[in-house]
């Protein structure tokens, strides 16, 4: 765990760069976390996914995997990969400030 200042707030991040406390998240933090991952600006489509991830986490305690995201977020799997390259579920979770999806066990 390391402590870093993001968007003016002192935050704990785990080894993989995920927020330790999802409650500490804000939209300004998301913008900064996205920039660190190479996403210069967050479009309305990005926000749709990010808000969906937050809502899923609040409801179920964890974020969905890619296929579930594609079926339920209103953004297709193909577009998810364009918005959040490499691993959309993982990257969107990181920017949304929620834990890495545990579906991968």
């Amino acid at each position, binding site marked *: 765990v390391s402590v870093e200042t993001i968007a003016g707030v002192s935050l704990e991040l785990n080894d993989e760069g995920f927020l330790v406390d999802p409650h500490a998240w804000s939209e300004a933090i998301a913008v900064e976390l996205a920039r660190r991952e190479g996403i210069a600006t967050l479009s309305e489509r990005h926000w749709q996914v990010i808000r969906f991830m937050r809502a899923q986490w609040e409801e179920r305690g964890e974020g969905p995997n890619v*296929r*579930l995201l594609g079926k339920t977020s209103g953004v297709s799997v193909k577009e998810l990969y364009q918005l959040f390259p490499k691993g959309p579920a993982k990257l969107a979770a990181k920017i949304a400030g929620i834990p890495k999806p545990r579906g991968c*066990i």
Partner: protein
Amino acid sequence: MKRIVILGAGTGGTLVANRLRRACGDRDVSIQCVDHDDRHVYQPGLLFVPFGMARPEDIVRSRRAQLHEGIEFHVDDVERVDLVSNAVQLTSGRVLDYDILVVATGAVLSPEETEGLAESWSAGVHSYYTLESALALESALTLFDGGRLVVNLVEMPIKCPVSPLEFCFLADSYFHERKIRDGVSITYVTPLDAAFTKPISSQHLAGMLAERHVEMVTEFNTARVDGPGRKLVSYDDRVVNFDLAVVIPAHSGAPYVTRSKDLGDALGFIDVDPHTLQAKCAPNVFVIGDAAGVPTSKAGSVTHFEGDVVVRNVLAFLDGRELDGSFDGHSNCFIETGFSKAMLIDFNYEVEPETGHYPAAVGLSLLKETRLNHLGKLMFQWLYWHVLLAGREIPGISGAMPLAGKHAPRPKEEEVSS
């Protein structure tokens, strides 16, 4: 009379039915079990079929014959579950009313979720997660004299997540025995960022792949399978070419789950309390095995360990007692590593696979290849049919994960989420 309906007569459904039947004794309880056919496949045996190490007759038995007296068995499909009226609608038109429902219908393969996959079977693309596909792959391997073998799991979760790694190890061993290993390249293509999901075991397994000259391609999310063009294409437009591909399709829950209002998620898995295994959608529904959306492996060992808690909680619910919340996500599996050796891993929700011994300081070696582990894996099939399904205890093997015998220092300072 209280009516218990169990959907699925595989590992979980059978062991829960048999244990409940015994535990209910003279109580006025009926137990009905439903499955779509009467073929119970010992799924861990499927891995061995392509290599000629297991025959269909060794790994398939009658479902009905595994269920004890006093359990009614229906061969039928489930149309839907109605959580409001507490009834299961079967495809034949029959309706089963229940007081308690146990869902044990596992996971199904969904090749249609990946573009080109369903059309690519027999065009250089194979699988082994069903008996039919495993037999077809056996024939294809026999005819394979050299070239690029690619093993790809499309997406997690899959049943027995170590199985595709075992397939690579066994393929290495198999081609050595056929004396053509030099002419075969083996590539393991995974959507994960490592060989496996947890750091310590990932490192061990990556080392074992490297020792065997199995190449690894990570973070590969298969968008398209092109059988005729003999290639896999990822969402970020990377290409892996093959001569023979072994592809594990994405998994979903049984189709009736998504047809049933409020029962499961969009992939057909059912949300449960991870410690009591009670469904979140209804208090009189319990879920065991691969059908449950719990953050542990989809594996027979997990199902076996869940059995204790599910049986206890069905009885507690009948009696109006408090539920037992002791399921800890315990999972273990023998990993075949080729050349008649295997290793064992043991873990739960909190503790990742590590070195040491199981079930205690004296026992089978963890994360280490031994002949004894291989014999353990082979012997387990006998235990499965005769002890596990019958719902009897396996001496020394309990539901909760043992810490004695494990090497890592405890308590851990922090848990690394996977």
